[in-house]
């Protein structure tokens, strides 16, 4: 039967072709009986065009409510070695930097207790250890913490924050994304490990509006670097771009500026910075000549999420500009103020973005103690349905 299970003609087709093959990866670990069975089970799915995993399962490590996704297959008799096939979400180091040394140690732990299969990384950012039997959860966890790693989030808690590589490498970073991520992750260990919110809450930090961790689309609190002074221009280098023929200033730059606030007169580039919306495009294109201003910081946006259930949301502006200084108390306090309000009044499985839509951004601001500013909206309301408050009326 083992043989028959290992017969994977459909999956084998996915070993060919130039793109790296996940089937090859599985086969690299297929001596591990868990992964051997996984291959067989997956082949079955390919034959039948249906998955063979059962819904959830309450497993985890002691004292934590999150970090492990329980999973059982629905053919445990045929594929007993992956009958329990949980995942551990291991909180990655900020920016996903590793040394060969630490990776090897991680591999050793995972070889000893698990399937040998990983996701580098999960969509939220965790280092995902894919396929762990229930009884191995605690030993893996113990060895991980011994090595200096901890679990990430799952369930209705703070989810593992992630960030772009920021100042580690990128000249556009307007704040230190990795430091902020590390600090915030450590500050909120309890919220991360012990689900107590109405639903999940994700942080993502990008160093500039290019948003290389997709924070505006995928995090409940999105922290995007920006600046509030003028773009720095090295006119000589601008002229070099033009002279070399590499850039056509009108076609590539000025006409693509969303507010058309740039002028190129053939020798000098001028920017009406009061109308620049810091989109990054001109800087991206003329990267040797232009750079963000010196008065750098970040904006905080709130409430992005996938479509379930009211439809997907992009995050919206909550704080237009904030200086980002360790230990980032402003952000910590803001997050806590939000959790207080949302924690108390949010419905079960209601993301903070949906909650704000339900109670109204105006009311939400009042509750968390922020003043409304026009930067928070595309435009003021168009409908006349204003809930005037009676204290106002008394004035």
């Amino acid at each position, binding site marked *: 039967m083992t043989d028959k299970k290992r017969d994977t003609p*459909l999956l084998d087709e996915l070993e060919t072709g130039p793109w790296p093959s996940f089937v090859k*990866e599985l086969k690299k670990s297929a001596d591990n009986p868990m992964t051997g069975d996984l291959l067989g089970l997956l082949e079955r799915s390919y034959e039948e065009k249906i998955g063979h995993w059962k819904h959830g399962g309450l497993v985890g490590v002691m004292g934590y409510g999150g970090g492990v996704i329980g999973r059982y297959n629905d053919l445990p008799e045929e594929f007993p070695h992956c009958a329990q096939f949980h995942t551990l979400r291991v909180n990655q180091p900020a920016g996903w930097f590793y040394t060969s040394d630490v990776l090897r140690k991680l591999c050793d732990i995972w070889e000893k207790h698990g399937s040998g299969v990983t996701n580098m990384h999960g969509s939220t950012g965790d280092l995902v250890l894919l396929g762990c039997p229930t009884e191995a959860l605690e030993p893996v966890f113990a060895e991980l913490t011994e090595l200096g790693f901890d679990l990430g989030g799952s369930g209705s808690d703070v989810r593992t924050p992630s960030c772009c590589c920021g100042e580690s490498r990128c000249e556009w970073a307007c704040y230190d994304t990795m430091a902020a991520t590390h600090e915030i992750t450590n500050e909120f260990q309890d919220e991360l490990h012990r689900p107590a919110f109405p639903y999940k809450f994700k942080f993502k930090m990008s160093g500039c509006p290019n948003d290389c961790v997709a924070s505006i689309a995928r995090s409940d609190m999105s922290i995007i670097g920006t600046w509030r002074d003028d773009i720095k221009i090295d006119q000589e280098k601008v002229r070099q771009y033009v002279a070399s023929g590499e850039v056509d200033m009108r076609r590539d730059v000025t006409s693509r500026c969303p507010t058309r606030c740039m002028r190129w007169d053939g020798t000098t580039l001028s920017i009406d910075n009061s109308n620049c919306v810091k989109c990054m495009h001109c800087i991206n294109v003329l990267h040797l000549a232009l750079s963000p201003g010196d008065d750098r910081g970040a904006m905080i946006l709130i409430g992005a999420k996938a479509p379930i259930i009211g439809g997907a949301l992009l995050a919206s502006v909550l704080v237009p500009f904030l200086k980002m200084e360790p230990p980032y108390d402003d952000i910590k306090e803001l997050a806590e103020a939000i959790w207080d309000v949302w924690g108390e009044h949010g419905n079960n*499985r209601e993301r903070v973005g949906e909650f704000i839509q339900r109670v109204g951004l105006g009311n939400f601001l009042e509750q968390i103690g922020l003043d409304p500013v026009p930067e928070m909206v595309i435009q003021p309301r168009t409908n006349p349905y204003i809930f005037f408050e009676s204290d106002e009326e008394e004035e």
Partner: protein
Amino acid sequence: MSQNIPQRKTDIGPPDYKQFLPPVIKKNYGQWAYHENPKPGVLMHVAKSGDRLYSVRAATPRLVSIETIRLFADIADEFTGGYLRWTSRNNVEFLLTDETKIDPLIERLHKEGYPVGGTGPAITNIVHTQGWIHCHSAASDASGVVKSVMDELYEYFVAMKLPAKLRIAYACCLNMCGAVHCSDIAILGIHRRAPQIDHTQVRSVCEVPSTVAACPTGAVRPTTVNGHESVEVIEEQCMFCANCYTVCPAMKLNDPEQDGLSIWVGGKVSNARSEPKFSKLAIPYIPNNPPRWPEAVNAVKNIVEVYAAGARKYERMGEWIERIGWPKFFELTGIEFTKYHIDDFTHAGESYKRSAHLRQVKE
């Protein structure tokens, strides 16, 4: 309670990233001057100090064996002094300072089957999800579709020949764990059959009120089956979102013949030029056809090629479509426009064309 549990710490948080940074980064942290992208997959970041950091980016299937991680560790030791990182899109980056090692490193990675590329105006790795590998909710596999699509789009990974970056995402169900809602091209697993209710299971594992509440269209109603509390589904009101299934495992939507893929286009995340955009429906349904999903692969390829031929430099998919107009997009790609393309959810009316701004209408 604590039987058999080895000594362990808790709430230590992730390891400090600083210990994993190569010296050149530690030294020049926050002091970078500019970067260049000398060739596909290679970035050069130059510090104000004059120091240079090279990052060589290789594709991975994301789902990787520890054997591969060990291989990467070995390669890192050989070329970078042991330093490497992963990107936000599941590529691995080797971080080195010795320019002469770049080409040998690339050669080595290619030899091992991990092609170098994905930088600049290219297609980089597909952000994706679990699929049949691990998730109960999946309407299709993830890794298999991604592999099939990227085999076909490989040339766009290893070269920088597109008008702009092109981000593809894949998610195996409407939960969209894979950034699908804001991608240039998104592939999304979908169900098309209302949940089949296992009433016995409802009784044992589901709360009727929360199951009823989970349904955004009110299709789930409480009922009594054989004298027990259960639920029923008004089929015409179901749009197959599986939210009921998430809260109640007895409401299975998976179906070999009805499940499949849909294709979405024109989303983006960056704020460069235009504001971030959601992806929009291009193709409502393509049947599941493992192991290589040829219809889906061709559909994606067609869209990429039409885009590559028509877009201007720096124009992302959605920006290109908005410039030429959606009618033209459907015309050029040959995709049929159906009633399914017309939004009918909460904010549907906001997507109706409420102006006389129309391009030339065909006779």
